[in-house]
């Protein structure tokens, strides 16, 4: 998959859909393309969150670990973004993300993300808006996975 395809994919992610494609290309370029084997963890619950992941292909399971057992709370597949809370607030990961199939993802590191949006208030706005929309949606739909992150 080429950089341009990644940009196309990013545009389908709600957070980024209204962002200038040129900036998205910069974001994609400065991010790493990473691969995970089935069973490998993208990140673990409680870990220091330093990056968000946009799934390019494959499926990742989202699992929380509470009262001694793992509970699957959702799945993320192509075009979805996970761990994005870290891009806005400094917190630890709320869930564990584990590759169910072979997963290819774009790893957007927190500091590169800040560098990209530093002079693009537009992206900032878009993200805040999408977040707000997500939150509003989640109030009516308690099963939405974004809800778990927001907590």
């Amino acid at each position, binding site marked *: 998959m080429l950089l341009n395809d990644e940009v196309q994919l990013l545009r389908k992610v709600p957070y980024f859909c209204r962002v200038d494609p040129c900036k998205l*290309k*910069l974001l*994609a*370029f400065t991010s790493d393309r990473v*691969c995970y084997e089935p069973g490998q963890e993208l990140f673990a619950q409680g870990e220091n969150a330093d990056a968000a992941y946009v799934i390019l292909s494959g499926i990742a399971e989202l699992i929380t670990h509470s009262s001694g057992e793992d509970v699957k709370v959702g799945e993320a597949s192509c075009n979805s973004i996970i761990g994005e809370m870290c891009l806005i607030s400094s917190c630890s990961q709320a869930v564990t993300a584990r590759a169910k199939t072979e997963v290819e993802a774009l790893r957007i590191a927190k500091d*590169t993300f800040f*560098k990209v949006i*530093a*002079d693009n208030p537009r992206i900032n706005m878009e993200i805040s808006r999408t977040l707000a929309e997500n939150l509003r949606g989640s109030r009516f739909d308690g099963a939405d996975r974004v809800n778990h992150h927001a907590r």
Partner: protein
Amino acid sequence: MEKNLLRYIWNHTRRHQIFILGIVLLSMVPYFMAFDLPKQIINGPIQGGGFESPGATKAFLDFSYQIPFVDWEISFGGFDLSRLEMLLALSAVFLLLVIINGLFKFYINNFKGKLGERLLRRIRYELVDRLLRFPPTTMRQVRAAEISSMVKDEVEPFGGFTGDAFVQPALLGGQAAAALFFIILQNLWLGLIAALMVAIQIGIIPKMRRRLIDLGRQRQITARHLAGKVGEIVEGIDTIHTYDTTNYERADISHRLGQIYRIRYDLYYWKFLVKFVNNFLSQLTPFLFYSIGGYFALRGTLDVGQLVAVINAYKDLPGPLKELIDWDQARQDVQVKYEQVREQFEPSQLLDPGLQTLAYTMPDHVPSPLATLAVTVSDGSGAHVTENVSLKIEAGEAVAMIDNAGTGAEAIAEAFGRVVWPTSGRVMLGEVDLLELPEAVTGRQITYASSDSYFFHGTLKDNLLYGLKHAPVVVEGDRAGATTARRWEIDEAEQAGNSIHNPEADWIDVRSTSVSTGGPDDLARSITGALDAVQLTSEVMELALHSFIDPKEHPVLSEKVVQLRFALREELEKAGIGGIVAQFDFSAYNKEATVRENLLFAASRQTNGFDAELAEGEYVFEVLKTANLFELLYGMGLTIAENVVEIFAGLPPDHPLFQQLEHITVEDIAYYQQFMQKRRRKPGLIVSETERKAIVKLSLYYIEPRYRFGVLSREIMDQIVAARDLFYANLPMKLRDRIERYDPHRYMGAATLRENILFGKLTHRSPDAPAKIRKIAARLTREMGLYDSFIDLGLSYDVGASGRRLTPVQRHKLSLARALIRRSSYYIFNKPLPGLDRRAQEEIVKNVLQFLQDQDNNPSVVWVLSNTSLSRMFHRVIVFDRGSVVEDGSYETLDVNSDIFRTLVA
């Protein structure tokens, strides 16, 4: 030290001075014989004196001598030689005398040189010896560069003077006296006139020299200050830059140089004035001879022949006299220098040399407590930092000292470490004052470490083991077993009163390491234990992995590293993560490496001040052209340029993201942008060679998984792999020894240890690849017995001047590790880790206490804490407030009873 340099020289070289004077006098015999010989040759065989009749012969080498008192006569009739034979014989004698004179001169000069150098060595050694015995307060006032300029430069002229110190005046004085005597012999009155003039010369000239001496003294001091100032600039260069004071420093230096110039100019003026007066006075005497002598000759009271004889005899007087005066000048010169230097090395108090006697064995363990008795310490201004502090540290105690206000705890720790001396009161080790104990006891029984410990130029290991170098392991002085060269060294050292110990010998006392089981690996275990305790091991390992080793020097190690390389590959395969390293394979393109790296397929040696790109670039382009790759890469470069420009063109030039582009700068982007615009406007434009190369350069640093522009086709990759041989085949000579080809079965000296182990590129697609590999590699390293070799390699890292190649935190850790390696009864740590974060500090304090408690000698630890909450790890806590002890007890009791302590720890 002796006040007078001449006396100093006499005291130390008396025997040799007398000997050389004897030799000089002996050398006079052939010297004067050689004077007389030309006359004999000319008068005799050449002009025919004594050979009036043809066939006449003369005796050669005939002599007769009657020994007085016994009336024995020794005589020799000589050989009868004809005129020609006589000429040859006398010429041969002349040649012989020339050779003998030359040899005498050679020997005398050599001897004088040796004498001078030995004395110089002695003085320098004595100065440094005194420096080592300075008390701490004096030491604080000296400037390092000034001291070194004194020891090195200012004493230098003493060496040259030593050889002439006594020989010259004896000889010249004799010559002058003889000349004067001859004049007096010719005519008493004229002789007395000459003597009077000499007396005036000797009387006036030294008086005029006073000014010269004064100027010389000033010159020496200003030059010394200049050296000190330059030293300060070097040491304070960071501060100078950060505060933009370079021009202030320039002005300061200029002013100093101006002063030196003025003094020197004055010096010249006076020097030549003195010379002028001196010359005048010596020419005045003949004037008097001509005028007064002439007057009397005209009057008829003086014989004309006598006058001529006097004037002739006077010729021999000014020469020696002038040299004698020059000698005196040199003497005064060095005397002034000597006094100036001596003054600096005569502090009011010096340590008794007995305190520093070399002790081969570790002194007996002192179980008695370390105590202060009413100790008062003052700072530089004389204000009291502590007042009447009495403390007792028992064996095996772990004591934390903390300050509420002031720096009393630090001052007491410094007093324990003998870094400062108490102004009143005493620090006692057992029953004896610490300052009266030899350093062999205090310097081994007490280990002191603070954050400003010094590091010497050398490797990490040298510095780490520095605290063990008390005495050579093998007792020296046995000359029988020594090599000739070493025997010579010892002899010479003794002649100059120097230390006879060999610094190259083994000085590391393995019996005084902290881990002391008597086994052979005590030292190694102490090192690893100390490094682990201060958390320096991983950094040392990192240094090792970044280092270059020459496989010729370490054949075994490099062989093992190659084995490790294969083992690592195997283990990664076994763990199912073989894909995280893209191995170098001669027949395949390595996708994780740049195009350039793929073409070179070699490690290239990095040398300082050598631009690899510049040196190899042209050749790379050449190869690309021969392999028909240039055009392909140019096309590829155009696409890359388009993408890069699109992504980065909008960003301001100081945007942090530019740092992500490894080989492309902001200026490059602007250049490519202009180029692309130009191309778009005029499609048929001719592209210059430089522009083409710039575009190809973009392709050269392209990595597909990193950039993901999709421009690297299978075809290009194959062609690059095919061009590898081409690149190597015609490699120019100057690149040949810098470029080393990848070979899976060989160690590459041009690559770092890490690159050699990995032998490939980490994939860009697995973010946790480094951590995974590190884990497996660390296990393999230990399994294959390479761990110690790697640590050793890391320890051979050069720390630079005063350890500046290390970070401050590394320096602090190293200082602590250096202390931990030594076996002592008392460890005094004076805020050794100031720059460290809380958590690391806590861990290190815990590790250190644990490490020391694990040793069998039950040592005491006194730790001045900057982080007061750590005091709970100690048996006993002492709280200082404005220089006095306000609380002393266990953590628990203080926590309950003391308000001050609670506020401090909270």
